[in-house]
């Protein structure tokens, strides 16, 4: 460390994470250790969950040796002249590096690996999350030294807020010339008693501090922590592949087995053996088409593999029977207890929000009856009423609630006779026909069409929108006569991405038009219209 310039530290945090507390601690620690220090911040309305920064400078020579002279500190961080950046969120770290803050020859970067997604990332219909690996690469490429670990998990585990962990990380890095005791003294609030005698808050802060200190101070501890977090988080790990029936294993190439096993099990669980056989039969036709287009399997049977995924999900379409089955499981009740962090002795009551409409009930009725229910509901809407729906709050912890869930989920047999079942099968066939035809024409075209299965998901209007988009793309693009197959494949890929970009479908229409296809027809939607008459006379 140079002796003639202050040590500078930029802290990035989100509003409400205790960044103000952290800077107050640091300034106090410097004072107790006998060094000149200054901090600044720009909290403002960023306190309301926005991104904000704090800035600290410490002069590396003790005050006692300055002969009464006082350093002049900067109030704002100087890009490219920082000694360290400490950040509680990975994207914010990358943002500050993008602002030019970190100098690869000088700046130590300590960042949490945790992502707290921005609204813009969360609101996308598909996956709008920034690529964490890319953010991490930026941290690596533009720092002198970097430590990246999950500070937020560490704070959770030690029962404190992330600012305490950040302080520990700063201390552990040796950035400032203060001994560990100086930090701990201030975190304790000057209380010198043993940790178990401290107030709850101070004790938790001290634990968080120690964890952060070890993580940065001793790299081995950091590695151990990362692996322990990974090990603890088995809930998200994929379940071991289910056994694939031998008959299916023989019919399909090994590259498809993993996905096929999952898909087959899903469809079987959803309905019955016959339905699962239908699944395998449908997929076999896709495989035939792919074998024709790519006899050697040079592409690793990617079309069949993707079709195995999306076909299973489409065939196991969501309806009230399925939802009731999923919500009625004992494993689900256990999962809820975990998610709400209930202790063993706590009572947990779970209320499920349902709002089935006329369409959901009609789905289970035979076509004739279903048509009459739907017509009745349309009639209501034509009279200016809202579509009929039954808002329900079902207590699945109660006997009556659980009994009704079980009753509903036992209606599997009804599903097969219902009008929606028939409708979905017809649409599935249309999609598969397009996939097969596309594959036989050009492998890439078939592959893109198979991937379009991603557009089908969910319930109600989301599901309707997805189907509408998919059918329109098949109709307009898949068999577009004037475009060559590779151009069509490209167009379908672009349209698929666009369809997942916004719910209004503006991007999709633009993508369709760009590739020479018609935009989607406008859907009629009833609105209540209050037209103010233009003024005709003077006001009374």
């Amino acid at each position, binding site marked *: 460390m140079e002796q*003639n*310039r202050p040590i500078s530290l930029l802290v990035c945090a989100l509003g409400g994470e205790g960044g103000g507390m952290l*800077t107050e601690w640091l*300034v106090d620690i410097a004072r107790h250790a006998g060094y000149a220090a*200054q901090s*600044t911040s*720009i*909290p403002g309305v*960023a*306190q*309301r*969950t*926005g991104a904000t920064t704090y800035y600290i400078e410490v002069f590396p020579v003790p005050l006692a040796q300055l002969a009464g002279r006082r*350093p*002049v500190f900067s*109030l*704002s961080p*100087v890009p*490219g*002249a920082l000694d360290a950046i400490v950040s509680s969120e990975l994207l914010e770290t990358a943002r500050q590096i*993008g602002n*030019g803050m970190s100098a690869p020859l000088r700046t130590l970067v300590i960042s949490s690996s945790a992502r707290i997604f*921005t*609204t*813009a990332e*969360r*609101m*996308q*219909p598909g996956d709008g999350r*920034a690529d964490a690996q890319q953010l991490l690469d930026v941290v690596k490429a*533009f720092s002198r030294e970097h430590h990246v670990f999950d500070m937020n998990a560490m704070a*959770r585990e030690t029962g404190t807020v992330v600012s305490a962990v950040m302080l520990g990380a700063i201390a552990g890095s040796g950035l400032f010339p203060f001994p560990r005791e100086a930090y701990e003294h201030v975190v304790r609030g000057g209380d010198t008693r043993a940790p178990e005698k401290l107030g709850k808050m101070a004790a938790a802060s001290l634990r968080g501090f120690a964890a952060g200190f070890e993580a940065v101070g001793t790299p081995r501890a950091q590695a151990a922590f990362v692996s322990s977090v990974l090990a603890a988080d088995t*809930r*998200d790990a994929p379940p071991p592949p289910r056994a694939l029936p031998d008959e299916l294993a023989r019919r399909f190439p090994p590259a498809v087995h993993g996905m096929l096993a999952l*898909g087959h099990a899903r469809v079987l669980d959803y309905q019955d053996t016959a339905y699962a056989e239908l699944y395998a039969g449908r997929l076999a036709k896709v495989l035939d088409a792919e074998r024709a287009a790519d006899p050697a399997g040079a592409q690793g049977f990617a079309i069949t593999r993707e079709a195995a995924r999306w076909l299973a*999900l489409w065939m196991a379409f969501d309806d009230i029977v399925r939802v009731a089955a999923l*919500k*009625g499981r004992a*494993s689900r009740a256990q999962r809820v207890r975990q998610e709400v962090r209930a*202790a063993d*002795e*706590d009572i*947990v*009551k779970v*209320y499920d*929000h349902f709002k089935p*409409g006329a369409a959901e009930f009609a789905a289970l009725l035979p076509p004739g009856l279903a048509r009459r229910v739907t017509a009745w509901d349309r009639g209501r809407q034509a009279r200016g009423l809202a579509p009929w*729906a039954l808002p329900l709050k079902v207590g699945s*912890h109660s*006997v009556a609630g*659980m*009994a009704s869930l079980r009753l509903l989920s036992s209606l599997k047999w009804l599903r097969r006779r219902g009008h929606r079942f028939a409708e979905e099968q017809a649409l599935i066939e249309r999609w598969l026909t397009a996939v097969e035809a596309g594959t036989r024409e050009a492998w890439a075209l078939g592959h893109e069409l198979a991937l379009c299965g*991603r557009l089908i*998901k969910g*319930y*109600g209007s989301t*599901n309707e929108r997805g189907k509408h988009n998919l059918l329109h793309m098949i109709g307009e693009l898949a068999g577009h006569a004037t475009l060559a197959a590779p151009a069509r494949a490209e167009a379908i890929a672009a349209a698929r991405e666009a369809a997942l970009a916004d719910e209004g479908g503006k991007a999709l229409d633009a993508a369709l038009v760009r590739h020479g296809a018609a935009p989607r027809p406008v859907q009629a939607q009833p609105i209540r219209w*209050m*037209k103010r008459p233009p003024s005709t006379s003077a*006001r009374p």
Partner: protein
Amino acid sequence: MLRLGAGDTFHGEGILAITKGLLQSGVAYVGGYQGAPVSHLLDVMVQGKAYMDELGVHVEACSNEASAAAMLGASIHYPLRGAVTWKSIVGTNVAADALSNLSSPGVTGGVLVVVGEDYGEGASVIQERTHAYALKSSMCLLDPRPELGVMVRMVEEGFRLSETSNMPCLMELRIRTCHVRGSFECKDNIAPAVSTRALMSEPAGFDYMRLAHPPVTFRHEKLKGDERIPAARRYIMEHGLNELMPGGRHADLGIVVQGGLYNALIRSLQQQGLADAFGGTDIPILVLNVTYPLVPEQVADFCLGKRAVLVVEEGQPEYIEQDIATLLRRRDIQTPLHGKDMLPAAGEYGVEVLAGGLGAFAAKYIESSEASSSAKAWLAGNRERREAVARQLETLLPNRPPSFCIGCPERPVFSALKLAQQETGPVHIAADIGCHAFGTFEPFSMGHSILGYGMSLASRAGVAPMMNRRTLSIMGDGGFWHNGLLTGVQSALFNGDDAVLLIFKNGYTSATGTQDIISTPDDEMKERAVDKQQSLVDKNQTIEATLKGLGVQWMRTVTTYDVERMRKTLTEALTSDFNGLKVVIAEGECQLERQRRIKPWIAGLLQRGERVVRVKYGVDEDVCNGDHACIRLSGCPTLTLRDNPDPLKVDPVATVIDGCVGCGLCGENAHAATLCPSFYRAEVVQNPKWHERLLHALRGAMVRVLQPA
């Protein structure tokens, strides 16, 4: 902290040091209107009411900046030192009328207006300079060097300067100056001679000269130029308010800088190798702790004989530079003058920006050195690195603007408004200042205009008559009391306008730090509430009573969390046959305030082993469809994403993370918008009673019989 006396050292934030400075100056009354970055000044005084009473200092939380500025009228006749504070430029705009009327007769007791210069990084208002107000109304403008000792001294000197010159003084503090942590040596506080404890017995005699009324206003204008400004200049010189930092190697050059920018200037000189860590500089610097009026002799003396002078002045227009140019020209001083020709016209002057300007200045007048080339390399390095990172990231990083807090009562209203517009078609929305302005950000992106605090209803007056569909004005209760009641409601009623006003009644001016207003539920109410978790704003009916009193005929009050009812009410207001002013009051207490009350209460109950019900919402991962429509209707920070645990599915699922306060919006939206059925509401009963345990055990046994694995 405010009680510290001689011999003590103060450690803390700049704005708190200023507050202490006021007490050390014997201030008699303090007022203001909250706003970052100066909210804290008034907050600590309001909280320290007992001590203020002890000193005899009156503290007033004013209804707006105009009311705060008018309060300063006390110092026209009486020897009372008064201070007020607000956020500038917006607050000064609101206060402008009273400030003009105060400045014209001038003051007897010292007056200090502490304004938060909300400019540059972290600012939340339009970017304009307060400087213009000092010029036009002839008020002194202090811009102290951001060192706590200097800042406090300038408070004390400011009162004396004001009294000597009869001019009110403004003190501008930038955001980082308000939040800088440092220390200074305290003095004892001074109890004012005339105070709430030592009352005046008689009013002043009649004196027409003290009125801002013709014909004396013509005399006042002459006095400003003939007596007041010269007196101020004398005081500034005699008491050395501006600081001259002598230069070393390059004493034939000079820099004139606003006091508030001194630290940034020193750091950029260091980067150019022209200063050391302790402020020792190669180029002499004139630090203007008073940026208006300038003292012509002082500036002329500084410039005389120099090869060139650089003026470092933030924002536009460059009033100081123009002032200096004029005075040099009049004195026929030929020193070349630089400023905005080398520094950018707009934006905050951070170290990097200043170093760029200094680089240009040095290139012209100083031989290049090792230090100057390393500075060049540093600046070029920054540029290159920014480009390199942008290239590596490929796409722009998403912004992270502030948003509604977890469980905020205002978020559900925007959900309802989004749904209502699906029925009525899109409407023109006149937005306003306050937390509800976060509705302009994703996922709602609503609002066509913001014309000022409390101005939404007034700002639709020209749009509504020209529009086929009704327009909607959004206003917070803060904005309503700040001026929306008069500029908006009264005007709409008087003109018989067909208008829709949506008032967010959360009980506080929340965006500025949840200060109390007249419609805040009172402390006694909070004390008496059995269930501390409930919203209490409905207990205060001042807004409703006021509107009724004014003659509003169509008024509906809706609990904000009831999305379905809110949607219906908004649709009704936008389509109803009633042609006058329609007011929808969205009632729900600020969640920040509720949590401040709830947290200690719950902690207390748990500690005593009493029954507590905690509510949290959740999403069933296997039912969630990965479309995120729920997020597009909410944006709550705790409703976020995680990887899909289903290996067949690729899109991330929604999830509710820790921190959910169980406000209920997820469930309301699921019903109102017919979202997917993945949401559940969990009620966790801690310390349940024995009969509850028994019932639960029996029920659990029966449920388990029904449940498959």
